[in-house]
């Protein structure tokens, strides 16, 4: 009882994030998940549904696809891992009814514990049984605290007046789930510190994430929905920091149609990226056009 009261009071009244180590309520934060969820409630009969992390919501622009005759929705969110994607699909897949799913599979999401993304979704999506299941599968005190606080806010309708701004820190939310950035990447060589922090290592696939991933693919197969697994490009410098890219490619290729666009496209580390591993609008345009060519070549979407 004391714990509960303290938790709510602490979350509500303490403005300093550093004092809330195991509590974070990122409503309307980076990634525009609040707006995306609101749009997802209305979206249906899609040609293409995009899934994945920030590589997805910053990588697939619905406007470019619309110009080419495809009705799409981008359901990517910050650090979204298969643990979150699975619950989102259980809740929304039948309503969205896509002909093709393009699932962005940056290996990082498979070695992530899924906490950051769970907070993003808990704070921005309504509480549903799927959300509770997702919190349980992440099983982290930070997620539980945030969920508990979210329940309190929903119970007292404290989020009713919330309106997420379309523009935030150089990012603009584009209808259809995409986030366009005005940022450009101030390229610098890979320093020793970055190498130490980031690289010369192998991707490590977590068992729980891989299991959730397989369940997501089963959902698609059961509904006879085609899916492509895609890695959007990252800078060459960032890509080369990991040693087992070929092994990861073989894992994904065994699960269905798979394109590692790092091997299909040659982008410029300076002008096509907003940071080490996110495309900017120039990179998005080139990547999306290449993807559309592939979709047409393979007649991936029935007329």
């Amino acid at each position: 009882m004391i714990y509960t009261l303290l938790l709510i009071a602490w979350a509500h009244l303490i403005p300093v994030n550093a004092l809330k180590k195991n509590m974070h309520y990122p409503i309307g934060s980076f990634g525009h998940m609040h707006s995306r969820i609101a749009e997802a409630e209305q979206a249906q009969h899609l040609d293409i549904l995009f899934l994945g992390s920030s590589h997805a919501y910053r990588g697939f622009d619905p406007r470019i696809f619309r110009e080419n005759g495809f009705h799409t929705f981008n359901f990517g969110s910050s650090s979204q891992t298969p643990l979150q994607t699975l619950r989102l699909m259980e809740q929304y897949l039948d309503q969205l009814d896509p002909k093709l799913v393009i699932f962005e599979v940056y290996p990082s999401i498979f070695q992530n514990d899924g906490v950051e993304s769970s907070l993003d979704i808990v704070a921005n999506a309504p509480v549903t049984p799927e959300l509770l299941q997702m919190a349980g599968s992440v099983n982290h005190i930070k997620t539980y605290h945030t969920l508990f606080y979210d329940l309190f806010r929903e119970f007292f309708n404290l989020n009713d007046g919330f309106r997420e701004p379309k523009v935030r820190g150089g990012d603009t939310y584009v209808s259809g789930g995409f986030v366009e950035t005005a940022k450009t990447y101030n390229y610098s060589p890979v320093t020793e510190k970055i190498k130490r922090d980031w690289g010369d290592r192998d991707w490590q696939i977590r068992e729980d994430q891989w299991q959730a991933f397989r369940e997501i693919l089963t959902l698609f197969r059961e509904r006879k929905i085609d899916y492509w697994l895609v890695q959007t490009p990252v800078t060459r410098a960032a890509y080369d920091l990991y040693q087992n890219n070929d092994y990861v490619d073989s894992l994904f290729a065994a699960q269905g149609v798979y394109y590692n666009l790092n091997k299909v496209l040659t982008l410029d580390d300076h002008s096509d990226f907003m940071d080490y591993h996110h495309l900017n609008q120039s990179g998005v345009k080139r990547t999306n056009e290449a993807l559309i060519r592939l979709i047409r070549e393979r007649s991936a979407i029935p007329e």
Partner: protein
Amino acid sequence: MLFNSIDFVVFLPIVFTLYWWIGSNRRHGQNLLIVAASYVFYGWWDWRFLSLILFSTLVDYLVGRGLAKEDRPTRRKVLLWTSITVNLGLLGFFKYYNFFVANFVEAFTFFGASIEPYTLQIILPVGISFYTFQTLSYTIDVYKRKIQPTPLEQASLSETGKDLIAFAAFVSFFPQLVAGPIERAKNLLPQFQQNRLFDYAKAVDGMRQILWGVFKKVVIADSCGEYVDLIFQNPGDYGGSTLLLGAFFFAFQIYGDFSGYSDIAIGTARLFGIDLMKNFAFPYFSRDIAEFWRRWHISLSTWFRDYLYIPLGGSRGGQWLKIRNTFIIFVVSGCWHGANWTFVVWGALNAIYFLPLQLTGNNRKNMDIVARKRSLPSAREILSILITFGLTLVAWVFFRAEDLSQAFVYMGGMFSGSLLSIPDLPDMGKVVVTGLLIVFFTGMEWLGREGAFALEQVYRIRTRWFRWALYGWLIFLIGMFMETDETPFIYFQF
């Protein structure tokens, strides 16, 4: 199994319920449960090493029996040395084999010779240094006739079996099996040989001590550990003030981690009606190094005092003998922590701190807790505490460093011109919060310094309402600031 794991949260209530369900008048059944639970607790980590505990238990039990029947001094000595050789042999092999081989090779290389070392991939069995010393204390005390061996002479086979179980419970008692306190047979063994009554007040006190131990570990130690790991990984990347902050955080990490473990162990034992010895007594309020060592890892310090320092002659004899014995006890204590020269230097450094006090006869000047019956210390006491803490801080750098060269890089960086700069770490807001948690923790320790542990005193002087609010607050802080990954206790590696 870690105390700070979900597994233990499930394990403890089950064992507790079964233990008291068996009943106070069936102590042999309770002992058997303790042994079984302890073996599960240990085997959770690696079941293969259970055989080592079992072997140690049987050897010392049989040696004890042998000593009971034997009066001839030579044969008694043989029995004693059998136990010492087996126990220290196991410890030496698992803990020091590769260290000695590596240093042997280095020495040969230094003199121009080249030899192919034969090293082994040895996993150090968790807790081996603790239970080895505990069983040794039994054999040595029986040898010195300080305690009666178990079982007593003329015991029937059934009695012998029951006493073997009691002895196995003494060796493997799960709350203190892997990181102490290192119990003495004369304190712990008799408790397994008599009926235990459930004492509500004792159990509640145990819960309170567990709560405080968990707070120390998962809030203080783990929060500090985050920065300690970062800074000690690449000390060359940081300025003097940041390195000083790293050493400061390590001082609280090691204290919170190890004394937190001890509090959880002692509190858990109390739930089973068992009293373990105190292991920490607010060491950072010490006014000199001698006092610090009376308050830090008490069970190990007193073990070395009783079984090494005193047999060597202690402080009797001339000055040189005193100096020799002091160095031996501190360096051996350092070596006990691990096979690394950093621990040797850490031990030697503490000996250097200690010797002036001993040689001037001032090592027993501060026997009582600081500022007893007073709210605040005097300015002189504050200064003494700060100097003592500063000395331990320097020694901790050697304790934490991966090797001596890293320690010297760290020390060189710390005592450089940048010592007076503002510390530079990522997310300074979190660093400040960690500092605030340390302030709260130190305040609580100060208020409770006259008790066995901080919360004990708070309980005695406050109302029920205040008490429950405090428990709620502590549990909330644990929930809000804990690391969710199960971080192992530092002393498991020793």
